């Protein structure tokens, strides 16, 4: 029963005085590595991709990168915070609709009304709640703040009453369902099932022009990098550690004097803001926002990329989201049915048998390599189970 735990190989090297800076907590080198990583990513997105991809492929990539932004948020809320949010489509949609409303109004000109409103012919003038979106000073902040406000409202009600786990997942999904039904029902002012389509201009730039499409792509790529930097700071901050603690032992954290509801709320609201921004940028990239893009099904599809890449890692969700979105395009063009089977299979295989996602394979390979990762890297659920198994044996 005594010292039965095998010491992890990595950390035994450094019996430094405790109050020194811990060995794996970076002074210079890892920070350098991060900077190099970001530079590499930036080079890939800003130089290589525009060079090797056709205009068409580049605009597809822009779309994938928007999905990846949502994934970054889900990685924080779900991977780090344990909140499986199945309603990110709502926030994506709020951002997207806010942006699309502004662009539609800008297309229509100062006195005009969006084309679909005239088409359905029920309205003589612009509905009141559309009006503020004519101003970019309202519409642009709204793409992020609106989703954050909704997440704050729902989250503060729900987390404070300790609605969590599956209950929370189902509620978030119900929110997506309600939002879609509302949008479809209010066809006269929302465009109904069609959504807001046929968006022509983006702050004075013609979206049909490939050069401007390229500009939109660069904006999206830059935003994704910025969000990744934000997510990285969040994950490695004290708050990030606290969030993991709340995920693994909400009650325990409460007994340490924290209110877990606020901790979770921050992650949820941040994730919502990221999804909103993604939705807003999705609109100029694709030219449409509609209920079919934000309902129950797309909302849960946002999650699969995160699961495939590795929910608790920083880059996993991004790479997973892009890979899944790419595979979807590649396969569903040729074999539409096959893709659905494959997607279903992905959910089953990855979540059931590789809960740490591809990132856990990567981590495993590195450990085999001998270049043992520091203990704190092992945050994947896989590592958790391994750790649990290791300690269970002697207790039995």
């Amino acid at each position: 029963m005594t010292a039965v735990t095998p010491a992890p190989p990595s950390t035994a090297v450094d019996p430094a005085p405790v109050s020194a800076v811990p060995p794996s907590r970076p002074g210079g080198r890892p920070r350098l590595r991060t900077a190099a990583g970001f530079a590499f990513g930036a080079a890939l997105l800003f130089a290589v991709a525009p060079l090797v991809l056709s205009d068409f492929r580049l605009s597809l990539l822009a779309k994938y990168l928007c999905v990846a932004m949502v994934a970054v948020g889900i990685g924080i809320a779900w991977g780090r915070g344990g909140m499986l949010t199945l309603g990110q489509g709502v926030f994506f949609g709020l951002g997207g609709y806010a942006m699309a409303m502004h662009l539609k109004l800008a297309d229509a000109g100062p006195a005009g009304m969006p084309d679909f409103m005239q088409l359905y012919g029920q309205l003589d003038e612009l509905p009141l709640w559309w009006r503020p979106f004519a101003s970019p000073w309202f519409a642009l902040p709204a793409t992020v703040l609106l989703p954050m406000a909704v997440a704050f409202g729902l989250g503060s009600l729900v987390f404070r009453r300790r609605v969590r786990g599956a209950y929370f997942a189902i509620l978030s999904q119900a929110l997506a369902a309600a939002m879609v039904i509302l949008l479809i029902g209010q066809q006269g002012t929302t465009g109904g099932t069609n959504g807001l389509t046929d968006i022509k201009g983006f702050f004075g730039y013609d979206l049909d022009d490939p050069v401007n499409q390229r500009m939109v792509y660069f904006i999206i790529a830059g935003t994704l990098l910025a969000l990744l930097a934000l997510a990285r700071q969040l994950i490695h901050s004290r708050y990030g550690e606290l969030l993991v603690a709340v995920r693994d032992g909400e009650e325990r954290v409460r007994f340490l004097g924290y209110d877990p509801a606020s901790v979770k709320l921050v992650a949820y609201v941040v994730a919502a803001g990221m999804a909103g921004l993604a939705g807003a940028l999705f609109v100029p990239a694709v030219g449409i926002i509609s209920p079919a893009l934000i309902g129950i099904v797309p909302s849960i599809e946002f999650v699969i990329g995160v699961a495939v890449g590795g929910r608790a890692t920083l880059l996993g969700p991004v790479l997973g989201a892009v890979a899944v979105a790419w595979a979807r395009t590649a396969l569903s063009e040729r074999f539409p049915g096959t893709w659905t089977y494959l997607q279903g299979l992905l959910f089953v295989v990855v979540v059931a048998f590789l809960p740490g996602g591809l990132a856990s394979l990567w981590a495993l390979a590195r450990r085999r390599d001998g270049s043992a990762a520091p203990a704190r890297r092992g945050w994947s659920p896989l590592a958790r189970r391994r750790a649990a198994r290791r300690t269970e044996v002697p207790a039995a």
Partner: protein
Amino acid sequence: MSGDRLDGLSVRDVRVSFDGFTAVDGVSLEVPAGDIRFLIGPNGAGKTTLVDAITGLVRATGSVRFGADELLGRPVHRISRLGIGRTFQTSSVFEELSVLQNLDIAAGARRGWATLARRRRGVPDEVAAALETIGLAERAEHLAGTLAHGQKQWLEIGMLLVQDARLLLLDEPVAGMSHEERDATGALLETVSRDRTVVVIEHDMDFLRRFARSVTVLHAGRVLSEGTVAQVQADPRVQEVYLGHPVDAGSAPTGLEA
């Protein structure tokens, strides 16, 4: 660290019931400042439920005061911020965080958002001191999930120390520990109680005899007996409760009668 204020715990007529079943039935007890009080009793006596009530996990009627503060009716995290800390029967450290991170989180409930948003640099003094006290300085960087059972319990106690808890409520801290680990834990309790009040739920009678300063025996949700170890052992009602419940013999106390 703490200790500038040493407070006692005062429990008055506390009752807890679940769907008609009364788990704690009017318990009153006084734990003077700096005491190491052991709560014992057969399974189902209401020991853990009493601690749950004190820490706000279950709703209770009556009054619980720590120093001047009334605890009942406050949410769990507020009670915790008044200096009440507890451990659980099953160890509940954050297994995917390192020992250091566990302690740092425990130390940080009063931190503002500005501090939370930044990285931890270095080791806060109180965390370093706690690492020494609980003897895990060498393992600061290890994941808590890789610690041995006893070490996890110590980490929990360490978390209470950095949390600045002035009342420690420990639920079976030495269950499943080896003899050496028990001794170390007992010594730790004595160190800790110099400037804190400690309440321990424990079945291990040997441990109790060595480290308890006072004992309260609960039975069926009520206080059955109270006093020093010797007084309680001599109490015929206590002997009857333990001997009259052969089912409890496994968990109850070998050698209470000795």
